[in-house]
C-alpha cells in the first residue's frame, strides 16, 4: 500500500489580497491564509489513490509563520498526518532553500513511494519544487501532470506541454507535479473536519534537519513588490439587451477601437 507525501504551501489568498494605495505593496498582514490551489489538486490526487489502494497520505509544509489550522484543512481533505517547519528564515527562501528543507522534512517523515506537489506555488509560481526534489532524492519526476494512474508499482502520467501531450510510465518511488487539470479538489465535510482535529501534526525545527548553512542560503533577496493594476473606466451598461448592444458599439466607436 503506497505511502504518499504531498507538499502543500500556506499562501495568502491572492483572489482577495488588497494593496496599500500609497506604497502599492500587498497587505500581507491582512491576507486570508489558505493552501495553494494546485497543491490542493495534488492532495486530491493522493487521497483518491488512498481511497482505491489504501496506504497513507502525509502532508508536508514549510513556511515563515505556519498556522496549524490551515494545515488541518489538508488533514480534513484526507491527509493522515503532517510534518512541518515554521521558521522566519523561510521568508527569504528561494527555490534552492525550499527544496533542501522540504526534501529533508520528507525524509524525516518516513519512506515515501510517491511524492506529489503542485506545478507552481500560488504565491511565487516558481515551477521548481518537483524537479529540484528529483535531483536531491534521485527519484524520477514527471512535471505538469494532467492525469495520473497508479497500478501496483507502476505509475502512468499524462502531461500537457505547450505543443504536445506526453504519456510517461515509471516505477516507484517517483515524484509528480500536478497541473490544475489533474483533479478537482473536494470540499471537506463537517465530519472530516472534526476527524482532522485528532490527526497528528509534527513540528520540526529547521536546525533538526541536518542542513548546512550553504543549503539554507538563499541566492536571491526580495527588494520590493508592487501591484500592477491599471486604472479602468468602470462604466456599467444597463438597460435592455438591444440598448446595451447599441451603447457598447457607440462607446467603442468613440474610443476608436472598432473598425466598423
Amino acid at each position, binding site marked *: 500500500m503506497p505511502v504518499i507525501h504531498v507538499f502543500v504551501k500556506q499562501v495568502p489568498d491572492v*483572489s482577495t489580497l488588497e494593496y496599500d494605495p500609497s506604497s502599492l505593496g500587498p497587505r500581507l498582514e491582512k491576507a486570508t491564509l489558505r493552501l495553494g490551489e494546485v497543491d490542493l489538486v495534488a492532495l486530491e490526487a493522493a487521497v483518491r489513490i488512498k481511497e482505491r489502494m489504501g496506504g497513507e497520505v502525509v502532508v508536508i509544509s514549510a513556511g515563515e509563520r505556519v498556522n496549524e489550522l490551515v494545515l488541518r484543512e489538508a488533514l480534513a481533505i484526507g491527509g493522515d498526518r503532517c510534518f512541518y517547519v515554521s521558521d522566519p528564515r523561510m521568508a527569504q527562501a528561494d527555490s534552492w532553500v525550499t527544496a533542501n528543507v522540504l526534501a529533508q522534512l520528507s525524509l524525516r517523515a518516513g519512506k515515501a513511494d510517491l511524492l506529489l506537489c503542485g506545478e507552481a506555488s*500560488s504565491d*511565487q509560481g516558481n515551477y521548481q519544487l518537483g524537479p*529540484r526534489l*528529483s535531483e536531491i532524492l534521485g527519484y524520477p519526476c514527471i512535471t505538469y501532470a494532467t492525469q495520473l494512474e497508479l497500478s501496483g508499482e507502476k505509475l502512468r502520467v499524462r502531461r*500537457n506541454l505547450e505543443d504536445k501531450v506526453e*504519456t510517461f510510465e515509471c516505477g516507484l518511488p517517483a515524484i509528480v507535479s500536478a497541473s490544475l487539470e489533474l483533479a478537482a479538489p473536494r470540499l471537506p465535510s463537517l465530519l472530516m473536519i472534526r476527524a482532522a482535529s485528532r490527526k497528528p501534526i509534527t513540528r520540526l525545527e529547521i536546525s533538526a534537519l541536518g542542513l548546512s548553512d550553504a543549503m539554507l542560503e538563499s541566492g*536571491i533577496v526580495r527588494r520590493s513588490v508592487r501591484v500592477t493594476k491599471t486604472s479602468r473606466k468602470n*462604466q*456599467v451598461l444597463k438597460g435592455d439587451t438591444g440598448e446595451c448592444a447599441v451603447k457598447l458599439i457607440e462607446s467603442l466607436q468613440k474610443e476608436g477601437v472598432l473598425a466598423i
Partner: protein
Amino acid sequence: MKKALLIAEDISELSELRAVAAELDAVEVEAMGPEDLQNTPALERFGLTRLYTSTSWSEDPAESLGKMLAELISGSGAELVLGVSRKRLKDVFARAAQILKSPLLTDCLSATWSDGELVVERPTLGGGYVENLVVKKFPTLLALQQRGRQISDLSGKAPEVVRLEGKFSGVRAPRLISSEAVSRSGVDLAKSRIIVSVGRGFKRKEDLKLAEELAKLLGGELACSRPIASDMGWMPEDRHVGLSGKWVSPSLYLAIGISGQVQHMVGVRNSRIIVAVNNDPSAPIHREADYSVVADLYEFIPALVRELKARSARPSG
C-alpha cells in the same frame, strides 16, 4: 558581467536571448540548442563565440538534460544562463540549478544591472503584483518571458560549433510511452489588435460559435481562459490567455463569460480597452473593465451580433 550562455530552441529565441544578453553587457556569449541551429544563415551576426549543438536536446528526458546543462554551465564558466520560459525548459533549468546550487528565476519580465547588482522583475502573487529581486549567487539561471525582442546585427565571427554528445543514458528517468502533437492555432495573439475571449460562462463547445461570429465581424481573434483550453479542450493551448498562457495587449479585449481571476487578468492588463460580459454583477472582472455588460451572454452576444450586422449593412454616415 563576463559571460552568458543562451539556451535556445530556435532562431527566434536565439535572437531574443541575444538581445537580452546585449542589454546585460555580456562580454562573451555562447549558445546551446538543437543541431539545426548551426544551419542558420549568417550566424556571425549573433556575435557568439561558441555554439553548442545537441542532437538529443529535443528528445532526452529532463533527468539527463539537467545534468548535461549543469556540466556545460560549469565547464563554460558562464555566470548568466538565459532561456525562454517554457514548461520543459523550466523543468531542465530547475534541475541544473539544483545541481549547481544556483538560483533559477522563472517567467522573468526583465533583468538589468543596477549599481553592480543584477535586478530581476517577475510576476508574483498570482500575477497581480511584480516583484523586484536581487540575485546574490552566480551562476544564475533566468527563464524569460518571450517578448519578441530581436537583436540588430552584431558584427563578429562565425561561432565555433561544438557538438555535445548525449552521455547520460544511465539516469533513472520515466519512460516516454507516447507523444502527440496538439493542434495549434498558430496565431500570435500577442500581435492581435482585437481579441474576443471566452470563458466557462459558455455551456457547450458548440456555443463558441457565437463568439466566433462576433470575432469575425469585429476582425478580431478568438482567445480563451485557461479552463476552456486545458480542462475542456475546446480551444488550442496557444489561445489561452493569462499567467500561464499568452500575455496580450490589444486595443480591444472583449471577455465573455470570464470571471476575471487575477491569473487571467495579468495576461490582459496591457489592453487599451477591456469589455466584460458577465451575468454575475459581483464577478471580479467588472472591477477591471472599461465597459461592463451585466447580462446573459446567450442573450447579449446575439443582440450585439445583430446590431453589428445591421450597421455594416447600412451605408455608414
